[in-house]
């Protein structure tokens, strides 16, 4: 077990390095000089060279990458071109806010998707199954940013029951566990939970249906075990797959929240990236993407390890 965890950790390192290379390349993918946004229009060539050297853009790319990586590892993500403040100072609160939204979406979407999928998998072919399949395919296909707008129209514009945007009363961007803040959280969290709920329902249904066809289930039934106990056995065998799907979906939520955050003006990473894109603030964009994708790598790693706890067969395979 420990050996497996170590091996899996070692495999994650090259991926993490690859992720940093991709994030680093982003700035160099951008058309034009990354300096063009900071330079005054009348800058003389000498000034340009000076600023270029100050930002380290005069060195060869591999050197720039290593310098950048060294800085990132020590927590220095550079300065925002727009605000001239350290990028990390903007990223940390944004990541926290995205996490709050993602966890809320998990709390709503995962149980919903799992229960729906389990019911459908247990009544394969019946009307219930068809209804659940229809719900889940709707969840998978719906453009969630549009769903967010529809919810705003229903609950904020027409009913006036819930706030349409922001994180708290008066445009606050700190979270507190009270009704005023939860009200703001409700619509974006529901919006964000729809796609993962649909995907989870579909995979849980397929997995449960699969496990129920296994010989051991017929054996359990034949020996007279009550349906509830049989279900426990089925659930235990379906758990690793369900866990893997949930883990992956949680990780996808971190990326998917960008559109939902834009709809609801939720001050998270999506909102931050969106403004960074339109002000061409590439260090902020780069830093945010790097932090989120490293989260993604870590979550995938955790899911893999957890899966082997539930299902030791995977370790050997």
């Amino acid at each position, binding site marked *: 077990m420990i050996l497996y965890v170590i091996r899996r950790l070692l495999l994650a390192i090259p991926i993490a390095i690859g992720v940093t290379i991709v994030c680093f390349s982003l700035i160099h993918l951008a058309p034009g000089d990354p300096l063009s946004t900071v330079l005054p229009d009348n800058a003389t060539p000498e000034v340009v060279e000076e600023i270029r050297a100050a930002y380290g853009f005069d060195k060869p790319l591999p050197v720039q990458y290593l310098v950048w990586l060294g800085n990132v590892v020590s927590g220095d993500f550079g300065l925002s071109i727009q605000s001239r403040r350290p990028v990390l100072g903007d990223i940390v609160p944004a990541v926290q806010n995205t996490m709050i939204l993602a966890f809320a979406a998990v709390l709503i979407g995962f149980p919903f998707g799992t229960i729906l999928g389990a019911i459908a998998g247990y009544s394969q072919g019946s009307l219930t199954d068809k209804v659940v399949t229809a719900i889940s395919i709707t969840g998978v296909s719906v*453009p969630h940013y549009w769903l967010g707008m529809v919810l705003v129209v229903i609950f904020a514009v027409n009913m006036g029951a819930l706030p349409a945007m922001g994180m708290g009363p008066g445009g606050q961007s700190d979270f507190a566990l009270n009704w005023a803040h939860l009200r703001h959280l409700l619509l974006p969290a529901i919006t964000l939970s729809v796609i993962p709920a649909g995907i989870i329902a579909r995979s849980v249904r397929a997995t449960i249906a699969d496990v129920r066809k296994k010989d051991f289930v017929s054996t359990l039934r034949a020996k007279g075990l009550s349906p509830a106990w049989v279900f426990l056995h089925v659930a235990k065998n379906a758990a690793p797959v369900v866990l893997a799907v949930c883990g992956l979906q949680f990780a996808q939520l971190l990326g998917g929240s960008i559109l939902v955050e834009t709809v609801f003006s939720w001050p998270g990473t999506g909102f931050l990236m969106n403004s960074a894109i339109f002000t061409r603030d590439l260090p902020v964009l780069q830093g945010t993407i790097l932090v989120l994708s490293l989260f993604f790598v870590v979550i995938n790693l955790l899911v893999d390890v957890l899966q082997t706890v539930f299902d030791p067969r995977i370790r050997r395979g």
Partner: protein
Amino acid sequence: MTDATVTTIAPARPAAPVTPAQGYWGGVAKRLRRDPLTLICLGVILAIVLAAVFAPLISPADPYKTSMMARLKPVGTPGHFLGTDELGRDMLARLIYGGRISLFTGVTPVVLATLIGGVLGLAAGFFGGLVNTTIMRTMDVFYAFPSVLLAVAISGALGAGLLNVLIALTVVFIPPICRIAESVTTQARAEDYVEAARATGAATWRIITVHVLPNVMGPVFIYASSLISVSIVIASGLSFLGLGVSPPQADWGLMLNTLRQSIYIAPGQAVIPGIMIFITSMCFNLMSDGLRGAMDVKE
């Protein structure tokens, strides 16, 4: 009887059930005919595609003609079947024209990614060794990004524009397609008939095109078709963020973006373009499911 013998000689896939007198595709067509939902979805998609292609012929109005007097008119206004947008342009005309860009940006990346990812996966699976390691480990890195994040990152760094959206989405879809192609190729390569072909001295190119490729195409095709729905939603999402085409171009995502400002004044109008994205994405999803069933491809 002779007819039947002739058709069975046509290359049959191992996954196809043994059905004499009809080829593999005959069976697929037969199963599809018995699946009304898939047929309806095919019909809807066909209608949307045809409407987009023949937009100038069927559009009830000029999608760019603004009218300050007729802004944000509701559905059913005389002369404007689906009302007007925030600049008084005819909503139906803009939806019809918008389909051109929205479908194009949704489908093209999947096609490109299928070609590129398919070839890479085939190469990785067939040649194995260092080729496999290089290709697949690179894919792993791109796989390590949440898909929407990667799409936003690339098109955000490249800047707004149609071409950049296409590039971003193609990059997003190459790794998953490559993985499928690689795993199917690896399985196919180990089959006895491939070994036999090699033993008879068949050239590598011939083994790939005649013995391996036909096995790989089915699963890759099915998987790719399931990506179109995702691709349409993300492409319109990028457009919604303002990363796609620029105004006054008509595009469903961009229309949602600009109409969002009027959500308090005309909530009914603001959500209309999203319905098109939803219907299209849903139909592609259901069609892909139907095709998967009809083609009997196991994942």
